[in-house]
C-alpha cells in the first residue's frame, strides 16, 4: 500500500522547530518534501546538541535530525538573486510552500505568497512565526522557550509559593505543529474540491493559546487569574507525584490520581494502610485536606518499588505510572510495543535514535522513511535531476555561493 500523502509536493523553507515539525508530518506520510537551507544562515538546530559522540558539527545534531526525517535537503543562499531564481523555477512543482522566517524575509526576497501565486495560482502557502505576519510585534524574534513564557504556560507551572518551574524546552514548538499540519491538510482538501489554493498565516502564539482556553475564558468572564498550584487538582485527591524507593541511585516517583471513593478504598488496600484520618473519609474531605493527604500518601509509598506499586494500583483500578526520565523512556515497553523508537542510518552520524510517530494509521501507515539529510545532500538530485542544471552549472553556482 502506498503512503497516505504520496504525490504531494512540498517546498520547505522553514527552519528550527515548528515549520520543520509541520512538514515532517507530511514527509513521514509519503509527501515529497524538499528542505531549502543555506550555510549562509544555518538552521540553528544544526549546531545544537545532542551531537553524535558529543562532538559538534553541522551534520551531527540529533536535534536537527529528529525534525527532518523523510526529507530531501538542498542548499540555496536566498540572499543571492540567482538562488531566488532557482526557487522560482522550483515553485511550479510544489503543491505547498512552508516558511518560518520573521515576516519581512520572504517579502524582501519577493518570495512571499503574492509573488509565488503568480507562478503557481493554486499554491497553498503557510507562513508560521511566533506572533503572526501582522501587528506591532510581528517582527519579534525569539525561540519557543520565550513563547511558552509569553503565552502563559510558565505562569501556571510552579508550586504555588511564588516559584516558577517552566515546562522543559520550547513547549509551544510542540503545540503549534499539530495545528499547522491540520491547517495544511484541510487546505489541500479544499483545493481538491474547489481548485483554489490559499495563504495561511499561523502565529505560534495564537495556536498555543488554544491550549489555555478555559483559563482565558474564565479571566474575561470573571477576572480570575489562573496561577500555579503545584500538583493540586479540583477533581482528584490524592493527585500528584510521590516518592518511592530509590533504584540504582536514582529517585523514583509515582504519579497517581484518585477520582472517587472506590478508587480510594482500592488504593488503601494496595498500600495496606489503615484508614488514616477521619478527614479523609469522603472525596470532598480529601480534596479539602490535600496537604495532609499528600503527606499520608508520601509516607505510605516511600519504601515501595515504583513499578511494582504501579502494577498493583492499576490492577485495583487506580490511574498511576512512574514519573519517567529520558532513560526510562528508551526502556519503556509500551513505547516499544507502539514501535516508537527507531534507529536510522544517517549519512554522517551512522545509526541514530529517532522518535517515531505518535499515531498509527491501520491501512496506510506512515514511517520514518529516511534519516535527516546532511546539508545539501540532495543538491545534485534536485537541482540537476529536477531542474536540469548541468554538472558544470552546479559547480559554477557553488563557486558563486548560490548553491551554498
Amino acid at each position, binding site marked *: 500500500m502506498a503512503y497516505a*500523502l504520496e504525490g504531494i509536493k512540498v517546498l520547505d523553507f522553514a527552519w528550527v522547530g515548528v515549520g520543520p515539525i509541520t512538514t515532517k*508530518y507530511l514527509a513521514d506520510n509519503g509527501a515529497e518534501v524538499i528542505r531549502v537551507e543555506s550555510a549562509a544562515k544555518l538552521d540553528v538546530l544544526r549546531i545544537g546538541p545532542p551531537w553524535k559522540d558529543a562532538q559538534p558539527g553541522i551534520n551531527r545534531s540529533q536535534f536537527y535530525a529528529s525534525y527532518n526525517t523523510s526529507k530531501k535537503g538542498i542548499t540555496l543562499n536566498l540572499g543571492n538573486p540567482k538562488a531566488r531564481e532557482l526557487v522560482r523555477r522550483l515553485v511550479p512543482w510544489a503543491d505547498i510552500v512552508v516558511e518560518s522566517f520573521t515576516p519581512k524575509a520572504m517579502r524582501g526576497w519577493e518570495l512571499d*505568497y503574492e509573488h509565488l501565486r503568480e507562478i503557481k495560482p493554486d499554491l497553498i502557502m503557510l507562513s508560521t512565526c511566533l506572533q503572526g505576519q501582522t*501587528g506591532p*510585534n510581528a517582527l519579534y524574534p525569539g525561540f519557543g*522557550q*520565550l*513563547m*511558552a*513564557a*509569553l*503565552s*502563559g504556560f*510558565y*505562569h501556571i*507551572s*510552579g*508550586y504555588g509559593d511564588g*516559584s*516558577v518551574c*517552566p*515546562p*522543559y524546552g520550547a513547549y509551544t514548538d*510542540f503545540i503549534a505543529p*499539530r495545528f499547522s499540519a*491540520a491547517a495544511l*491538510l*484541510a487546505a*489541500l482538501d*479544499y483545493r481538491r474540491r474547489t481548485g483554489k489554493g490559499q495563504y*495561511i498565516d*499561523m502565529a505560534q502564539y*495564537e*495556536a498555543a*493559546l488554544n491550549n489555555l482556553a478555559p*483559563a*482565558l*475564558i*474564565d479571566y474575561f468572564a470573571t477576572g480570575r487569574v489562573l496561577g500555579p*498550584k503545584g500538583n*493540586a487538582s479540583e477533581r482528584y485527591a490524592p*493527585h*500528584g*507525584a*510521590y516518592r518511592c524507593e530509590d533504584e540504582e541511585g536514582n529517585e523514583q516517583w509515582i504519579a497517581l*490520581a484518585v477520582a472517587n471513593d472506590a478508587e480510594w478504598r482500592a488504593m488503601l488496600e494496595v498500600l495496606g494502610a489503615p484508614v488514616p484520618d477521619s478527614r479523609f473519609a469522603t472525596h470532598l474531605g480529601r480534596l479539602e485536606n490535600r496537604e495532609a493527604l499528600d503527606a499520608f500518601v508520601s509516607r505510605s509509598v516511600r519504601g515501595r518499588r515504583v513499578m511494582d506499586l504501579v502494577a498493583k494500583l*492499576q490492577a485495583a483500578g*487506580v490511574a498511576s505510572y512512574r514519573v519517567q*526520565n529520558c532513560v526510562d523512556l*528508551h526502556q519503556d*515497553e509500551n513505547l516499544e*510495543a*507502539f514501535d516508537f523508537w527507531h534507529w536510522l542510518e544517517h549519512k554522517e552520524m551512522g545509526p541514530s535514535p529517532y522518535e517515531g*510517530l*505518535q*499515531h*498509527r*494509521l*491501520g*491501512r496506510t501507515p506512515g514511517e520514518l522513511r529516511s534519516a535527516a539529510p546532511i546539508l545539501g545532500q540532495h543538491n545534485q538530485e534536485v537541482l540537476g535531476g529536477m531542474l536540469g542544471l548541468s554538472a558544470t552549472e552546479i559547480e559554477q553556482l557553488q563557486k558563486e555561493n548560490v548553491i551554498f
Partner: protein
Amino acid sequence: MASELLKGFRMLDLADEKGAMCGKMFADLGAEVIKVEPVGGCTTRRIPPFLEDIPGEDRSLYFLAYHAGKRSVTANLESSDGRALVAQLAKHADFLVESFPLGYLDSIGLGYDELSRINQRLIYASITPFGDKGPAKNYKAADIVTWASGGMMYLMGEEGRPPLQMSLPQAGMHAGAEAAVASLIAHYPRQTSGLGQKIVVDMQACIVWTLMNEQAMPIFHGDFLRRSGVFVGSADARRKMVFRCADGHISILIMGGAVGAPSTIALVKWMDEKGFASDWMKAKDWMSWVPGLLMAMTQKDREEIDELEDRVEKFFLTMTKHEIYREALKRRILLAPVATVADIAADEQLEAREFFVKVDHRDTLGRELTFPGAFARFSATPISPPERAPRLGEHNREVYCGLLGLDLERLSRLSAEGAI
C-alpha cells in the same frame, strides 16, 4: 459562517478530555461535529472550575471551551437501541474519534471492524493512554499520569521537591490535536480510494514528543536531565532562565554566539545606560562566548555567569514585566514576560490582530463569553468564531429525525426507554 475548509464532512465525537480537542479542531475547520454523550452527559461537563463557580452541566469552562462549535446528541451505549443509533450515525459519518478504555467499543459492537462493515469510508481514531499493544495498554491514566509516563513531569519542578504538572492539564490537548492531524492524513487517500481506516493515537508518545529531543541526550552525551526549577542545563553548566522583576518574572536565556550575541550585546548596553553593567560585561566578546557548550564550564565562566545573572535580576527588579518587554521589543532583546492570562488578555499584538472573539451564550448563560480565536488565518476560508457549546442532547431531534429520518413518536419511545 463556518469555514469552508471541511464543509460537508461529519465527525462523531465520542471522546472525553483525552480527545475533545480533535473535534474542536474539526469544528473550527468547518466540519459538522456531533458529540455523542451518555444520557447523563459527558464527564467533561463536570470538569471544574465552572463559570462564576456556579456548577451546572452547561457551565464547565473546559466543556464550554472544547465543545464549542459541536452539536450534542445523547445515546445510551449500555442499551441496544442506543448502540443501534450510534451505528446508524456512523453510517452517515466521515470521521469518528473516541477515547474509551481499549476494547470497550469493540465489546459493544461499535468497534472499527463492525462500523467499517457498515461504512467502509469511515476514519476511526482511538486515543489511548499507553497505546494498544504494550503491557500497560489497559491501564488507566488521568492527565497527570500521562504527563509522568511521557517524561515531561520528570523535568518540571525543583530539586528536592516533587515533579510537577501544569495547572491546566495538557496531555489531552496534545493527543486530541494529534488525532485531528492523523485523521486528516487518512482523509487524503480516502477521498480517492473510498476507504477509511483505523487510527490509534498514543498519548504517552505525544508527550515524549514535547521533550525537544532531550531523549537523545543520554545516548550521545551520557547523562539524563533532572528537574532544576528556573535553571536549564546539566548540574555543572546550569543557566538561569527565569528572573524576578518588579511585578513578576521575565524569561531570558542569556546566550553568546551567532544566535545569542546580538541580543546579549543589546541587553548589556541597556544595563550600562542604567548603571547595571560591569566593565567586563561591556568588554566581553559575546560572539565567541559559549560557556559549557563545547567544553565544561571553567571556574571563571561560572563566576561570570553568576554575576551576570545576579546583575540582570537586580536590573529587572527596577521595572515591571510590561516595561521590560516593551523596551526589549524596541532593542531586539530576546526575552519574554512570564505572562498571566491577564497580561495575555491585554496584549497589544493580540488586540491588533483581533484574536479574541465573542461567543454568544445569552440563551444558556445570559451573557457573551470571550474565547481565544482561530488557530490559523486562512486567506480563502477563514475560521469563524464557534457557536456556543451545545446543551445536553440539544440536537437529538435535528440529528435523529433530520439525519436518520426517525419520526417523533419513535424519538419519544427511545427517550422513554432511556436510550437517548
